[in-house]
């Protein structure tokens, strides 16, 4: 018999309790992994929304908390282009339209001049890009195309009575992207009655090195008091949405961890108390304290690892299911990042150790004579 066989036998010999504890741990781990997984997906989506676009520095109206409310005159583009270290400037108007029934998030429409860098980087799976900046044409993300039920050659109304031709469909691993569409800047400005106005300027630097980009952002901001400039990566990291989502995920995770460890502690304390005589007997047979500790901690750790495996599998299924749902699908990326799964596993190991160590220690400390008298 291996030592692990004894550990297994103890867990299998008490199936109801082991299964209950295992499910408790699994639920805690599933909650933590799916929450952190969703937030992480959200975060990376937002991050490469900018990075994948080839935009180094984002220039917005100064003093605005959220980018959506920023308004700048398109004419400021020339001033920015004149700043030292700027390779290219692309003006962009971002609008959130209500195109789908019962959609609380709305559909993001980005207006960019034809042939600007972010457009050229799109991964087109059907059709092509618009050629003119004033044409009533759109390139639609795959998820959005599915939600709107449109294909290349179809017509979609951005606003009631305002038809646009769908000229291309693009794919993106990014849920935000894939749920959005691109329109020619001029056409969008005209549609929204915002001629000459933009939300922001996307700047490509001559150097892409982070230090150089920070300096560039400072110079751009200094060029006009209406401008505030940030390195694209920093914008994503600092975004209020991400910070909120992160804190909520951690808060909920903490609660899940607390519940999980109390459950584990309870189970292991019961397991030790119930087996007081057995543990005393093992000590009488010559088991050293550390072997008793190894037994109890081994049991709790094994339970937790099994719980973690079940929990992580559950989280993967849950996140996948959520990403398939029409209501949440445009917000949730379908995959849980491997390092989030690893976090879940480590968390479970921690639960196993914490929940097992104290009961193990009290079991090892028990005087064998006392234990043998215990009934």
């Amino acid at each position, binding site marked *: *018999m*291996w*030592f692990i*066989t*004894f550990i297994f*036998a*103890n867990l*299998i*010999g*008490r199936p109801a309790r082991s299964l209950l504890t295992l499910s408790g741990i699994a639920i805690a781990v599933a909650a933590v992994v799916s929450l952190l997984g969703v937030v992480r997906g959200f975060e990376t989506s937002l991050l490469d929304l900018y990075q994948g676009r080839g935009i180094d520095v984002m220039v917005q109206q100064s003093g605005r908390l959220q980018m959506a409310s920023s308004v700048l005159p398109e004419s400021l583009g020339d001033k920015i282009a004149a700043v030292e270290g700027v390779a290219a400037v692309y003006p962009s108007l971002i609008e959130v339209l209500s195109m789908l029934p019962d959609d609380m998030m709305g559909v993001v429409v980005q207006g960019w001049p034809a042939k600007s860098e972010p457009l050229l980087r799109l991964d087109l799976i059907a059709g092509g890009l618009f050629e003119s900046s004033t044409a009533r044409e759109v390139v639609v993300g795959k998820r959005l195309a599915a939600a709107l039920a449109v294909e290349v050659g179809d017509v979609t109304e951005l606003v009631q009575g305002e038809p646009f031709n769908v000229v291309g469909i693009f794919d993106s691993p990014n849920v935000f992207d894939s749920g959005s569409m691109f329109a020619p800047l001029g056409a969008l400005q005209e549609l929204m009655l915002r001629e000459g106005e933009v939300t922001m300027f996307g700047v490509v630097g001559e150097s892409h090195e982070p230090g150089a980009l920070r300096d560039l952002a400072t110079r751009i901001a200094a060029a006009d008091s209406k401008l505030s400039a940030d390195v694209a990566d920093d914008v994503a990291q600092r975004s209020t949405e991400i910070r909120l989502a992160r804190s909520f995920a951690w808060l909920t995770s903490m609660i899940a961890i607390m519940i999980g460890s109390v459950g584990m502690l309870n189970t292991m304390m019961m397991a030790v108390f119930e087996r007081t*005589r*057995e543990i005393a*007997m*093992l*000590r*009488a*047979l*010559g*088991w*050293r*304290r550390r*072997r008793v500790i190894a037994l109890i901690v081994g049991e709790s750790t094994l339970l937790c690892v099994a719980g973690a495996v079940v929990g992580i599998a559950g989280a993967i299924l849950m996140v996948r299911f959520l990403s398939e749902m029409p209501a949440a699908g445009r917000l949730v990326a379908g995959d849980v990042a491997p390092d989030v799964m690893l976090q879940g596993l480590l968390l479970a190991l921690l639960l196993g150790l914490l929940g097992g160590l104290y009961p193990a220690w009290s079991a090892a400390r028990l*005087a*064998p*004579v006392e234990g*043998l008298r215990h009934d």
Partner: protein
Amino acid sequence: MTEPLVEADTVSRYFVDGDVTAVSDVSFRIVAGEYVALVGKSGSGKSTLLNLLGGLDSPTGGTIRFAGRDLADFGDPANFRSSQLGFVFQSFHLVSVLTAAQNVQLPMFETDLSARQRRQRAAELLELVGMSHRADQRPQKLSVGERQRVAIARALANRPALLLADEPTGNLDSSTADSIFRLFDSLHGDGMTLLLVTHDKLLAERADRVLTMSDGRLLSDQSR
């Protein structure tokens, strides 16, 4: 004179809880190969003395030496128990989730034996106590006499120098008890040193030597 295997030198055990002196000034020696019975009325201190000899409890006075070495010098007496002692209890204390053969292997975790060697040794021991045919049964499926045989095989796992048993037949009917007696006899025949606590007159009569306790004191020490 032969070097004693176990030596109790004016050993006392006082319990603050209840203010009782369960063992009072007890001295005796046991040499290797002896078959000793420890008898006395209930509450006379037999179990307490046995626990002290096994290092499960520490004396409040006096010294216990094992092969010349003071038990108090062992950091964790578990090391000493694992290599030198075998314990048999009145209520067997078998682990219910393990088979007979696995129960016998429990003490071997403290040795260098490989899993395969542990399995082999358990098979030999079960053979010795006549339990080979029930090796893969859980204790619940065994009769009480069979359980005690498994417990004895387990006590012998690490080839102890001394076998300590506290009322080993206390839970057995007389004919089952008799078969256990015969097992002890044969172990003694093979050279094992035995110290058995018992109420059982018949078992006591089989021993070479009978120690009688009364009120924590050693009343008599008779050899046959």
